[in-house]
């Protein structure tokens, strides 16, 4: 009996290659995409879950600034961890991580490396995050300030098979660091992942004990734990079970306000380690939005694929009414017929699943490339099977409605005479499904178009300064001291137009200060400024348009002069800013100029108050304008200069255009994925439409034949067949446009600078959808219309 079901199902599947093809390809494609998204979502949700203490680990943030500059700092000051551990009974342990930043040069023997994942940290790093030492002294990972703990992959790169413990590597020019421990590489789904870890005590020594690199170059603090202004430390607290988080943040705030009363009020926030990847600390939004969107898209694509199957199989059930009724007459029970349909669906699914999983194995590297992940496909991943099972169940239920109705309601006799076709109300059911499909597709098309438009808008937006053909690099101390000589040398080179320096990265300025004052500053104000140190060439170099006052000339008095931007003027509440008294850090001076607003970080952020100070010694980044054509020569010259001062340390530079585009990597990735998803959704919907059009043409063969005999033209017949589908797509447009409009406005809201959604996008999406649908449907219609009517009428 069961064998018979499978045999019949297999014959039906094989016997109708067109339908089987459409169904299997559609299901497999839908499964591949949805399962890929599932893997991606699983990965996103799994972040930090490997750490079994994660639920008790919290990241600390501080809310700083008032008014338009209100900010949540996710890197905080060094004393937070020290005081929390010492004074809060709730805190078991605490760790600080100070990211050294990219391109840190290391050397072992004659091998040179640049490392991106380097940080100063507390020894508790290894226990809190579960990165236990696999060699070295667990209880004392940093026996001396010159210790370094490295990851397994770094150990292999540097030392090959040799034992890394005790080896000495050179950091930067000549600092000797001894390897005292090795940890496993952090899992790909860890938000905290460093390859080389240096003791934070060493940072303290350099910056506070020996060094003079305090932010203003004047104050001397005894240690980093006494510095309540240096926001550089990512800080995590390991709390005891069942602690009241509210109490913890209140206590932290009290400690801060006790030690630095002028910061009052300075609220603290915390965030579970499990949430750090997907949510912003203390604010709404974050990567979770993308996860949600993609999950919805995955479900939608599966729904489209299922709808294809439901539509086609129910349509075909009509054509099969004759077979079904014959089986009824020769003794089939309803249950037996029902099982037959279910077995057929299950078999089709099995084929599609096998193809889908095969395709996933082949496409996974490509997808990883595309999504920037390191996903793996494992058949023991039960969620994959859950997803397949859910899809199968949903499809089975939906497909069974129709056969069940067909089997219980129709009289076999009528079906035998072909009277059943088209007489049941289920045409409406299928129409609804097609409308759902196309609505989803249109929403995705519109989404794709709008994301594309916004990215274009960002790329081409005038930043308010000249970034064309400019490349930049960061100087190290030696070169910074000899900047004038470097500049003179560079200007002699072909291709170099001009050279300047800043104390900031103009593309993505990360600096803040709240240590300021001005004439008439309200007591409650804690306005944050983005300071940019310049010399006399900087303002003309970038062509910052001056609205009022003068730019710096390099005169001695300039060190007490400030140039602010429009936003700063507004935020400070100044009517007539020129000549007003202002203090930044320990420098008392006056405002001598106002510059037009320009973009200083990603378009996600509003333009913030900026203050330019004349302080050539504090400028650490060189900007070189080239002719464009001879850019490579300029880069070559800069490389020569770099080598002269930095020897083997690799030279890292970037063109501002590229650096700017890199700010939107996440968006570009989203955009690429959206392109893919909407393409798949459209292909799937069209497959469904193609199948339905074929079915309609079959059912209407007789009608078409009669009409042709009566003199209908080919065009007339095509119109007859396509009219209905075009109407359905039209309805889909009406449904999809408001949904897309709403969803995309939400997406755009994340950008401080964004396009307004115009009707053109909707018109374009509408035309695209209609055109694609028309081409799909007309293929079958034309075929039907050209057929010889004698042939189609003879079968009756």
């Amino acid at each position: 009996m069961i064998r018979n079901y499978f045999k019949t199902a297999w014959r039906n599947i094989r016997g109708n290659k067109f339908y089987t093809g459409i169904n299997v390809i559609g299901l497999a494609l839908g499964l591949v995409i949805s399962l890929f998204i599932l893997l991606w979502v699983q990965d996103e949700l799994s972040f930090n879950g490997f750490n079994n203490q994660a639920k008790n680990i919290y990241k600390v943030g501080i809310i700083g600034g008032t008014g338009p500059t209100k900010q949540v700092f996710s890197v905080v000051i060094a004393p937070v961890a020290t005081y929390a551990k010492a004074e809060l009974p709730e805190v078991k342990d605490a760790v600080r991580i100070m990211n050294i930043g990219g391109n840190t040069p290391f050397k072992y023997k004659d091998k040179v490396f640049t490392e991106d994942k380097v940080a100063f940290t507390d020894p508790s790093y290894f226990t809190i995050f579960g990165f236990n030492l696999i060699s070295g002294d667990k209880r004392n990972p940093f026996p001396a300030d010159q210790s370094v703990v490295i990851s397994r992959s770094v150990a292999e790169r540097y030392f090959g098979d040799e034992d890394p413990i005790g080896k000495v590597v050179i950091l930067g020019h000549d600092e000797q660091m001894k390897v005292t421990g090795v940890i496993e590489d952090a899992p790909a789904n860890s938000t905290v992942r460093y390859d080389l870890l240096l003791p934070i005590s060493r940072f303290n020594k350099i910056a506070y004990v020996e060094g003079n690199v305090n932010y203003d170059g004047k104050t001397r603090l005894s240690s980093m734990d006494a510095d309540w202004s240096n926001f550089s430390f990512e800080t995590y607290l390991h709390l005891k079970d069942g602690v009241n988080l509210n109490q913890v943040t209140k206590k932290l705030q009290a400690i801060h306000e006790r030690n630095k009363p002028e910061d009052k009020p300075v609220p603290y926030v915390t965030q579970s380690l499990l949430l750090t990847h997907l949510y912003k600390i203390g604010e709404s939004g974050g990567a979770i939005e993308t996860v949600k969107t993609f999950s919805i898209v995955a479900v939608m694509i599966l729904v489209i694929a299922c709808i294809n199957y439901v539509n086609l199989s129910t349509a075909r059930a009509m054509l099969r009414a004759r077979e079904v009724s014959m089986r009824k007459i020769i003794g089939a029970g309803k249950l037996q017929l029902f099982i037959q349909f279910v077995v057929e669906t299950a078999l089709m699914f099995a084929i599609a699943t096998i193809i889908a999983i095969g395709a996933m194995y082949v496409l996974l590297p490509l997808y990883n490339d595309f999504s920037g992940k390191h996903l793996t496909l494992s058949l023991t991943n039960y969620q994959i099977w859950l997803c397949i099972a859910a899809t199968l169940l949903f499809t089975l239920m939906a497909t069974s409605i129709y056969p069940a109705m067909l089997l219980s309601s129709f009289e076999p006799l009528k079906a035998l005479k072909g009277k059943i076709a088209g007489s049941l109300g289920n045409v409406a059911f299928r129409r609804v499904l097609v409308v759902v499909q196309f609505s989803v597709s249109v929403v995705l098309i519109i989404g794709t178009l709008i994301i594309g438009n916004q990215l274009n808008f960002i790329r081409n937006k005038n930043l308010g300064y000249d970034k064309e053909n400019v490349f930049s690099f960061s100087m190290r101390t030696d070169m910074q001291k000899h900047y004038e000589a470097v500049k003179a040398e560079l200007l002699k080179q072909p291709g170099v137009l001009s050279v300047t320096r800043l104390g900031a990265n103009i593309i993505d300025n990360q600096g803040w200060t709240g240590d300021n004052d001005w004439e008439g500053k309200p007591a409650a104000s804690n306005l944050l400024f983005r300071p940019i140190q310049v010399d006399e060439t900087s303002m003309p170099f970038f062509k910052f348009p001056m609205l009022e006052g003068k730019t710096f000339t390099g005169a001695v008095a300039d060190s007490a002069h400030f140039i602010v931007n429009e936003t700063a003027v507004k935020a400070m509440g100044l009517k007539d800013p020129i000549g007003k008294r202002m203090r930044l850090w320990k420098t008392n001076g006056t405002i001598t100029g106002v510059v037009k607003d320009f973009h200083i970080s990603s378009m996600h952020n509003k333009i913030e108050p900026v203050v330019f100070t004349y302080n050539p010694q504090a400028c650490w980044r060189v900007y070189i304008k080239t002719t464009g054509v001879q850019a490579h020569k300029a880069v070559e010259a800069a490389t020569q200069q770099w080598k002269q001062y930095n020897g083997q340390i690799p030279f890292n530079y970037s063109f501002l255009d590229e650096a700017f585009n890199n700010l939107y990597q996440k968006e570009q990735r989203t955009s690429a994925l959206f392109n893919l998803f909407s393409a798949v959704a459209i292909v799937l919907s069209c497959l469904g439409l193609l199948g339905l059009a074929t079915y309609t043409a079959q059912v209407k063969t007789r009608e078409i034949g009669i009409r042709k005999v009566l003199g209908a033209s080919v065009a007339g017949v095509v119109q007859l067949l396509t009219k209905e589908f075009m109407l359905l797509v039209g309805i889909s447009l009406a449904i999809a446009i408001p949904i897309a409009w709403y969803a995309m406005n939400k997406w755009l809201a994340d950008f401080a600078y964004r396009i307004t959604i115009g009707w053109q996008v909707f018109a374009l999406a509408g035309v695209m959808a209609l055109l694609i649908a028309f081409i799909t449907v007309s293929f079958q219609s034309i075929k039907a219309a050209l057929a010889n009517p004698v042939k189609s009428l003879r079968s009756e």
Partner: protein
Amino acid sequence: MLSLQHISKYYQTGGNKAYVLNDLSLDIDQGEFVSIMGPSGSGKSTLLNIIGMLDEPTNGYHYFMEQPVHQLKEKQRSALYKQYIGFVFQAYHLIDELTVYENIETPLIYQNIKGAERKALVADMLDRFNIVGKKDLFPAQLSGGQQQLVGIARALIGKPKLLLADEPTGNLNSKQGEEIMELFSKINKEDGVTIIQVTHSEKNAEYGSRIINLLDGRIESTTTL
């Protein structure tokens, strides 16, 4: 074997009743071979379908194998016809996706008969109809006459007491038709299967033991041969 009493079947069209069958009474005994004749629209097929329980009369009494069919529920009715009645159609209505063998076997599957027994029964039938060589072919590969042979084999495999045939030779040429009619006679005589056939052909009708002529939903005349 079966008895129809005052059977009527009509459709309400506007204010009028369009009668297909009008107060028709008919008794058929076990072992009879009845031919129903009449012009198009006289109600032949409707009568046959009512006998086969594929259709219901508007009113009247219908007894089959001592059972009051008009009082039975749908489920009981279908159980009844599945057990006792076999159908043969003008257009054969074989299942295209199944081979000759499988087409004949299908009714047995639905009756939950075990595989070994099915095999024996089907082999027997193939042998008897002389189509062993065709058993693995699909309907599309057979001539009309051969398809109808398979159709009859399928109708007989469940050992029905009554065989209903709606113009079984309507799509066949005269020679094929003759063969089918010979086969019907043989089944009737040797197996004792009661046969009721609808036909347009005088010649084919004469294979029967009784000819019933219908006109406008009534029995116009009955001829016993």
